């Protein structure tokens, strides 16, 4: 078992319910039934440790309801505590560790789940999840032990809800904090480490930065999905967006300070991508390319782009790349330049990556219908969709598709770089085929 390092310094704890499951999703879970389930979930813990739980309700005038130690609610999506819910499945619930903080002990269940009261395995058993979450509200962290109610994954309802007893791992954990029920020396000990990480020191507000405008203007030289983050390169700098949509920093980082081994004064990356077969990172700059292991260029680079053997339809050897990406749809590497594209198979064989230019290329970029022929860069993202970036807009081709009728562009600045939405202006839905006009009787 693992302890959070936090505990209640009292054994009489109050709890209250502030909202109930939606009847449309979880029929049968009335206020009375929910109260009964939660009472039994608390009992699992008070059976083995000297703890007493008292439910507060609105008719009880002894305590204001808001003052309860453990406040239970059913909420959905963002609910202002830093742990947004994600609809049905995924995250089910969470609880805050004990302490003096206002949120301490609070327990939230995702109201988008189909909650049930035992039996129905197609739904989520409220009792099982509640016992787990109340474990957190009392100071326990996740356990890797099997069996333990504090394992992080939901693995179906507990058997015999009426006679449920905590497993040894959970009993030892709660008794480590609060002592043993009916023992002569209740109270436990102050749990030792691990402690929660201390917050970083406060940082002064930065003065307004002129780079803000650069970030929000778009027109990136290269965009790449590297190690699960999206890198936006522009001039001598870059920004990074994490998968949750937040930026590592609002301030740009200098390419030369981070990517070690590029020529001093590098002020433009044409394209970049993370190789699928060995996770090395490839940069194209002019007629050369570099291969990086993490953030350091490997010895022997740069090498000439001509090594890739890309010839245009007119037979000229390519000397510049506009965009490159791995299409998650098939794992192949695509390189774009001058309205044409080439496809490579980069397999890992005999401890090295072999690059094979596939037959039948180059092809015309207009095959990717609905997106610009000359794009700034491309990435695979989300559910394997291809994202095309041009100026301050991006287009998404879904589900491995090449040819979608209408691809509506969206703002890079707003969706990826935390910039304010610009005033509404007309943008063509399809940059290759201008949209037809339809006039009605009023002209």
């Amino acid at each position, binding site marked *: 078992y693992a302890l959070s390092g936090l505990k209640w310094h009292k054994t009489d704890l109050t709890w209250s319910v502030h909202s109930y499951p939606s009847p449309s999703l979880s029929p049968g879970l009335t206020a009375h039934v929910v109260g009964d389930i939660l009472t039994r979930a608390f009992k699992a813990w008070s059976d083995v440790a000297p703890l007493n739980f008292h439910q507060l309700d609105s008719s009880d005038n002894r305590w204001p309801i808001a003052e309860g130690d453990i406040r239970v609610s059913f909420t959905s999506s963002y609910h202002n505590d830093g742990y947004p819910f994600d609809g049905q499945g995924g995250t089910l619930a969470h609880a805050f560790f004990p302490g003096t903080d206002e949120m301490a002990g609070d327990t939230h269940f995702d109201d988008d789940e189909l909650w049930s009261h035992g039996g129905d395995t197609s739904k989520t058993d409220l009792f099982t999840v509640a016992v787990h979450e109340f474990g957190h509200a009392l100071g326990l962290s996740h356990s*890797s032990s099997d069996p333990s109610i504090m394992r992080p*994954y939901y693995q179906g309802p507990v058997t015999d809800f009426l006679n449920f007893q905590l497993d040894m791992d959970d009993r030892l954990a709660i008794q480590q904090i609060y002592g043993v029920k009916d023992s002569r020396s209740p109270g436990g000990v102050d749990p030792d480490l691990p402690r929660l990480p201390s917050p970083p020191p406060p940082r002064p507000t930065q003065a307004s930065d002129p780079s803000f405008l650069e970030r929000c203007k778009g027109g990136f030289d290269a965009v790449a999905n590297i190690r699960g983050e999206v890198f936006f390169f522009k001039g001598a700098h870059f920004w990074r967006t994490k998968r949750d949509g937040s930026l590592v920093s609002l301030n740009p980082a200098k390419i030369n300070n981070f990517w070690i081994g590029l020529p001093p004064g590098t002020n433009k990356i044409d394209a970049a991508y993370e190789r699928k077969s060995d996770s090395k990172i490839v940069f194209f700059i002019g007629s050369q390319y570099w291969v990086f292991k993490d953030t350091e260029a490997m010895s022997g680079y740069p090498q000439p782009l001509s090594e890739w053997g890309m010839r245009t339809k007119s037979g000229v050897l390519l000397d510049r790349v506009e965009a490159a990406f791995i299409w998650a749809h098939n794992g192949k590497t695509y390189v774009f330049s001058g309205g044409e594209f080439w496809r490579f198979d980069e397999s890992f064989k005999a401890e090295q990556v072999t690059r094979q230019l596939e037959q039948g290329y180059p092809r015309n970029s207009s095959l990717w219908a609905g997106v610009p022929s000359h794009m700034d860069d491309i990435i695979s993202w989300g559910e394997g969709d291809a994202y095309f970036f041009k100026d301050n807009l991006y287009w998404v081709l879904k589900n491995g598709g090449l040819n979608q009728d209408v691809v509506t562009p969206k703002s890079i600045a707003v969706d990826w770089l935390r910039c304010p939405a610009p005033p509404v202006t007309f943008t063509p839905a399809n940059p290759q085929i201008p949209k037809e006009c339809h006039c009605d009787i009023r002209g």
Partner: protein
Amino acid sequence: SAVPDQYSKAVDWLSRYGYLPVPDPRTSKLQTKEGIEKAIRVMQRFGGVKETGVLDDETIKLMSMPRCSLPDIVGSEDMLRRRKRRRRKR
């Protein structure tokens, strides 16, 4: 049909549940290939599946199971650093 971008999703999942350090805005270190492999191993050990260090089917299945929102590993790096500091002082 599309192959979901498992790799990016897995990095996000590992960061969210404490297996990978959240990128520090002051140092902005890049996640390393070895770091991600190590995090996958710890996650596999914690979850009770075979420790391979790669995103195999069993691991992806475990990552997509319904679960509690709280992280599995809390402040491990921070704790190690503090222990080292204490040892050095001694």
